[in-house]
């Protein structure tokens, strides 16, 4: 009876062993020659924007600036700025900046921080694997430069060459492939590598020179996203571990054919750690706080509507013109409406919603003879005007949207 029991146990043991050995064999197969039959999954992270908690403004996760020095008049400079948070409580945007300066002295990386509009060389240099805090759809994550790459070197081995030459006579083995030792080493990507890649992305972008936004830049080889719990503990593995990971970022870019010659061209206001850097030849004797573009409109830019009952014309900017002007930021619109330039036309005033919603810097209405000028309902609504300059004109305000 005992023998039967032992025999049953032994048979069960052999069956289990055979089954599990088969499993080991299957695994070995999928790890070697059946590699391409293993199902793969793709993890995609979209770290597109971060919200400034102090202003509510949506910022692109990455800003990039590349002065390619194609015209060889300055330094080749690549800059990257990560708009990230000061900590996991996400109280403030505390951006981390990287600047690669390439000149006759070689290539050197500088690191900056930006807080509240001030840029300065950082007291904490970021290294491979350091976490920067970002936000994805309201959840806190960390982003780190922690990508690696492998390089395989091929070295001739005399012993293997002799052996494979002899054995190749019988087996047909490829001498060329088998006479070498292959040595594969893994390296960590550096911030220099990342900046050079960013420069290449800007250089190859069909947007060309100037300012633009590239919405989905996949930096999955370099950057990975980590989950951070409420205690600030960073998960040991990046999201999408064991799968192909796409790490998409929104990149606001500036690409320039010029070389960087002036600290004012840098997004950090500093080149190679020098905020006074200037090899531009431009005397730094004039400076300004900001610049805008002035758009001057006259009565000729308005379209007229004839009103039979009053036997005259009301004027408005066309919807197309208003929409066109709304496309531009940083412009100031000054309107000089001279009634006397309309000869033999009875000008009555501004039409309903004549300038509706268009931000106007100044409006002057003038005439060579004294006359009334009506401002119909909504004609100046949401224009931001607080006063209207007149010359020989008596304004008749009919709920125009502005108190004059």
């Amino acid at each position, binding site marked *: 009876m005992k023998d039967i029991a032992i025999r049953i146990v*032994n048979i069960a*043991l*052999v069956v*289990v*062993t055979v089954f*599990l*050995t088969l*499993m*080991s064999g299957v*695994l070995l197969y*999928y790890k070697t020659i059946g590699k391409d039959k*293993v*199902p793969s*999954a793709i*993890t*995609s*992270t*979209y770290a*597109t*924007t971060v919200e400034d908690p102090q202003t509510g403004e*949506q910022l692109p996760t990455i800003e990039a600036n590349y002065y390619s020095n194609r*015209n060889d*008049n300055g330094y080749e400079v690549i800059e990257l700025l990560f708009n990230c948070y000061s900590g996991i409580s996400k109280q403030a945007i505390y951006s981390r900046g990287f600047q690669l300066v390439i000149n006759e002295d070689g290539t050197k990386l500088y690191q900056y921080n930006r807080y509240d509009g001030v840029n300065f060389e950082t007291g904490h240099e970021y290294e491979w694997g350091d976490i920067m805090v970002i936000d*994805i*759809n309201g959840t806190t994550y960390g982003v780190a430069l922690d990508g690696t790459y492998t390089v395989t070197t091929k070295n001739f081995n005399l012993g293997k060459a002799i052996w494979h030459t002899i054995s190749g006579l019988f087996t047909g083995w490829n001498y060329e492939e088998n006479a070498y030792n292959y040595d594969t080493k893994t390296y960590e990507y550096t911030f220099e590598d990342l900046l050079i890649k960013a420069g290449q992305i800007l250089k190859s972008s069909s947007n*060309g*020179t*100037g*300012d*633009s*936004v590239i*919405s*989905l830049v996949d930096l999955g080889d370099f950057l990975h996203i980590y989950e951070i719990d409420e205690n600030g503990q960073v998960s040991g593995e990046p999201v999408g571990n*064991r*799968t192909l990971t796409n790490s*998409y970022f*929104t990149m*606001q870019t500036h690409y320039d*054919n*010029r070389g960087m*010659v*002036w600290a004012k*061209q840098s997004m950090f206001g500093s080149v190679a750690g020098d905020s006074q850097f200037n090899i531009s030849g*431009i005397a730094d*004797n*004039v400076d*300004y*706080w*900001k*610049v*805008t*573009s*002035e*758009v*001057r409109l006259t009565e000729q830019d308005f379209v007229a509507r004839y009103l039979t009952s009053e036997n005259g014309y009301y004027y408005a900017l066309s919807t197309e013109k208003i929409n*066109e*002007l709304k*496309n*531009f930021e940083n*412009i100031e619109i000054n309107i000089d409406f001279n009634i006397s330039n309309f000869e033999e036309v009875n000008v009555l005033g501004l039409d309903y919603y004549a300038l509706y919603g268009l931000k106007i810097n100044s409006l002057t209405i003038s005439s060579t003879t004294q006359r009334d000028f009506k401002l119909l309902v909504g004609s100046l609504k949401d224009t931001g005007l607080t006063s209207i300059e007149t010359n020989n004109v008596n304004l008749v305000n009919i709920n125009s949207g502005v108190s004059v």
Partner: protein
Amino acid sequence: MKWYWYLICAVLIVVGIFSSIELVEMFNVSSKEYGTAITIETKNNYDEIAKYDFGTIGLDSEDYITFSNVTTFAPMEFDGENKDYILLFNDQPAVNTVVTNGKVVGDVNLVFYGLDGEVVSKAELNFVIEYFASQTKVTTTITNNNDSVSYLETYMGINGALLKVVERSSL
């Protein structure tokens, strides 16, 4: 069975268990997405038909009042007969752009402000682009008032000088 067969079985079972776990993990992967693909709306994403990147425009003058620059570019086909265009200088519009068959003319007026919000200078730039069969000629002219040329040079030193011809319908 001899004792060493039990040992071999034990080793194979342990290896087999780990292999099975790895196989299950290997075939249970699934794709995941974190976040959403958002496109940031940009206002300067125009349908430009030509782009002239000067870097900076070198301005010369004989009388130190009118400064100008003439730069030639490769010829290109231009249809000013059937389409309307607007000039943009560093994405600032020349709203009064006038287009004829082979010519585009427009003014961009830059206003420079000082630290107290006062206007310190104005630079009124006139651009003429002429599309000849053999070349494209871009002429830039500015009248120097209140150091406007110096302010413009400072501005271009920082921002560059990128002139675009954009179809009005794409705005």
